[in-house]
């Protein structure tokens, strides 16, 4: 075998040399890799795998979609902030607590910015984080199970937009406030916004081993809109940068009133300093009320706990904690290059791109080159910190990502294009149109110390004529560019779910080997598990009836149940006994006022059925599981309230 493989590789090697040197018309070409038809370069032959994972935010769907690159194929939609009837997320008893908040159960949110966990500034592929914009929350998703494991609500925040970006060792996942609000919330005139509203920047610590999140502290900032953020890395590790707009502090007609100032700010937060202040006790403990929801893989069940306080730091009173970097015209994206030296402010109403230098910023702080302050926070002198300006690159810059070769790629919403430019020379190298109106863009690892600069995905807001029309509502599109050459090349566009607001990508080799295949039945600690057909039973507790049920190809145990009465609350606790990859089973019963269950091998899930009518009601397996799937069914007999039918259950008459 080994010898055979050596021969194989040797032959391939010799053949490759032949292929490269044999036909001399490919010598000096620098255009995108080995060019061939775009179709060939995105085609993944049947049975083969994509090179990259792309985790695309579902935007207003509230979810996170998993695609492959370069094919663009959709593999999974991970439910995060919205219920998903297909997967019973938010419908079964086990996952309902995941969507609990201080406002009660919320079935929807708007998911925005996924970010993959990092170690030493490089993607480590353990978790992916994403923020809920509307009711501020941060979720952590396991990249072993591809399931949402934890959701934490952010108090004192609103419009959780400059989130959920992580520091280079995943010390923190950071969440900033877009819509400043009274803190604490209170009844007051909206017109008194200025000077009274606050914007909280939250630093949520992440447990090194298990990922558990906890709000470490909040920095209570002036009432601006904190739009986007990114961590410092390398030399700027320990800092976090947030763009702001509406430094005018307008509360109405922001499209005019928040565009008055020539420059807004990038807030540079020294979070190492914040840690020192916390340690020194320089914080205030504020009363709060926010949900912390955790899904336990062993019990297959989530719990929701209400947290009651948060530590708050006041930057006006704590020198060295925050500085403002003046940045022209309502900057949107805030992006830091792989070296950590350059901080790019994408001023969405500016004609040029502003780049700040971390080294100059440090010097300016040291030399106190301040142009006054805003609410006690020093404003650094623009010229003292400016590294350079990319002149007239396009209209409406929004976001920038980086490759590993010193190039940056910026999206321009208004002029619908991606522009490649060079760090240091600030020269525009190439520009390519997008179809249409691009928002974010994503290069796998493009916001880390180690970008994988092979592909760029443009995440577009407008679709128009790209696909077959589907009535007034059409899907949003993503477009894939090859960026290995001097010139970018458009290879593919593909549809996405919801709004592909932002995305994070990683080499498949970092994640695929850890992907879980089954849950071990012996590790199942669900309180209502039945680990074999012998353990199945039906137990009545007053009006509550608990069915301990199992499923295996191709039957339920039990599959005949009698003695249920109208007015009962029947809990079906169903365990999938399979220990075989990709053999889930589903279940639902006629008239159930909830979704199906879709249960993975070794897992237990529960749905509640409240029978309203006398009769004999069938249930069945909802996921085509086997050759005898159509036979996987059963009956529940429902008798009148007054009946004396004894509770009984059976399989094949036994």
């Amino acid at each position, binding site marked *: 075998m080994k010898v055979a493989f050596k021969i194989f590789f040797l032959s391939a090697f010799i*053949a490759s040399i032949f292929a490269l040197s044999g*036909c001399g018309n490919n010598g000096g*070409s620098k255009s995108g890799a080995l060019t061939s038809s775009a179709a060939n370069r995105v085609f993944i032959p*049947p049975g*083969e795998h994509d090179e990259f994972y792309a985790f695309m935010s579902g935007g207003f769907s509230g979810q996170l979609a998993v695609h492959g690159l370069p094919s663009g194929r959709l593999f999974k939609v991970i439910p995060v902030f919205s219920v998903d009837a297909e997967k019973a997320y938010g419908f079964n008893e086990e996952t309902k607590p995941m969507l609990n908040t201080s406002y009660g159960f919320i079935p929807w949110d708007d998911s925005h910015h996924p970010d993959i966990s990092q170690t030493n500034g490089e993607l480590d592929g353990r978790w992916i984080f994403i923020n809920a914009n509307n009711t501020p929350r941060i979720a952590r998703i396991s990249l072993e199970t591809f399931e949402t494991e934890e959701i934490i609500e952010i108090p004192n925040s609103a419009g959780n937009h400059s989130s959920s970006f992580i520091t280079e060792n995943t010390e923190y996942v950071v969440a900033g406030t877009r819509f400043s609000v009274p803190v604490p919330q209170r009844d007051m005139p909206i017109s008194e916004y200025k000077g009274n509203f606050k914007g909280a920047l939250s630093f949520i610590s992440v447990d090194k081993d298990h990922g558990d999140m906890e709000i470490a502290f909040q920095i209570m900032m002036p009432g601006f809109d904190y739009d986007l953020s990114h961590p410092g890395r390398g030399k700027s590790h320990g800092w976090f940068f947030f763009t702001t707009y509406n430094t005018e502090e307008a509360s109405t007609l922001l499209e005019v009133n928040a565009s008055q100032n020539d420059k807004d700010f990038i807030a540079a937060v020294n979070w190492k300093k914040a840690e020192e202040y916390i340690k020194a006790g320089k914080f205030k403990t504020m009363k709060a009320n926010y949900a912390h929801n955790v899904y336990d893989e062993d019990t297959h069940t989530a719990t929701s706990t209400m947290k009651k306080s948060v530590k708050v730091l006041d930057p006006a009173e704590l020198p060295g904690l925050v500085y403002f970097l003046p940045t022209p015209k309502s900057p949107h994206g805030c992006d830091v290059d792989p070296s950590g030296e350059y901080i790019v402010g994408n001023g969405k109403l500016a004609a040029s791109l502003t780049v700040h230098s971390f080294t100059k910023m440090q010097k300016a702080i040291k030399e106190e080159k301040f142009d006054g302050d805003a609410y006690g926070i020093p404003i650094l002198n623009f010229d003292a910190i400016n590294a350079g300006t990319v002149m007239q690159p396009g209209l409406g810059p929004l976001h920038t990502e980086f490759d590993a070769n010193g190039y940056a790629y910026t999206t321009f919403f208004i002029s619908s294009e991606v522009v490649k430019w060079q760090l240091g020379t600030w020269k525009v190298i190439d520009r390519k149109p997008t179809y249409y109106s691009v928002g974010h863009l994503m290069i796998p690892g493009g916001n880390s110390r180690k970008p994988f600069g092979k592909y760029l995905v443009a995440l577009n807001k407008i679709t128009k004529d790209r696909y077959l029309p589907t009535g007034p509502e059409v899907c949003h599109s993503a477009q894939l560019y090859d960026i290995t050459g001097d010139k970018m090349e458009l290879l593919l566009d593909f549809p996405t779910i919801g709004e592909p607001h932002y995305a994070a990508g990683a080499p498949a080799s970092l994640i695929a080997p850890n992907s879980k295949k089954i849950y071990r039945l012996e590790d199942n600690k669900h309180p209502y598990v039945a680990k074999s057909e012998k353990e199945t039973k039906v137990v009545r507790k007053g009006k509550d009836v608990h069915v301990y049920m199992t499923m295996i190809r191709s039957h339920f145990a039990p599959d005949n149940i009698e003695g249920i009465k109208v007015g009962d609350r029947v809990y079906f606790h169903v365990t999938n006994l399979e220990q*075989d990859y990709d053999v889930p089973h589903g279940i639902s019963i006629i008239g159930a006022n909830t979704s199906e269950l879709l249960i993975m091998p070794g897992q237990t899930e529960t749905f509640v059925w409240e029978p309203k009518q006398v009769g004999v009601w069938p249930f069945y397996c909802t996921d085509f599981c086997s050759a*005898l799937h159509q036979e996987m069914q059963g009956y529940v007999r429902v008798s009148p309230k007054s009946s004396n039918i004894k509770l009984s259950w059976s399989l094949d008459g036994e």
Partner: protein
Amino acid sequence: MIRKMIIIFTACLFLFACNSGGEEQPSNSSNNLEDNTPKGQASVVDNVSAKNILQVAMGSDDHTTLVAAVEAAEIEHVLVNAGPLTVFAPTNAAFDALPEGTVASLLEPENKEKLAFILTNHAAPGSFNIESLKKESKKGRKIYTAAGEYLEVVVEGKDVTVGGAKVLGTIQTSNGIINVVDNVILPTEK
């Protein structure tokens, strides 16, 4: 097999090395899709799930003839799919007990169909472990095989026979049941 793949792979590179663009280097497998997964699901690598019927049979020293026959008949995919399936697996000794030359003849390529029929007659949709087989006997139900035949289950004392073959043991697998039997079940003459 691997040698064959090398030849194809190398040939592909040569064929495409100097096409019109002179730059194209397509993935080898895009050009021979059918060779990608010759055994279909049977070639899926999965070290985590419980073993399926084929994997269990391949790991058994007592079933080398059966496995060789399954491979010769090219019906591996039947034993790895979602099932559920019950296989009555004759031991090597059971095959040895057939008239001399029978096995060798069945393994001849021209007898592939006949061999496949005999083997699929040892497989039944459903999960029948020894307890289920006893129940089938008690209830007078026969086992319907994948070859379309009906096998009678007889219980005599401690012995359970299916189509005349005695069950020596039952193994639960990820996609069904293996009942090891002491005889090859030959189809009824039609």
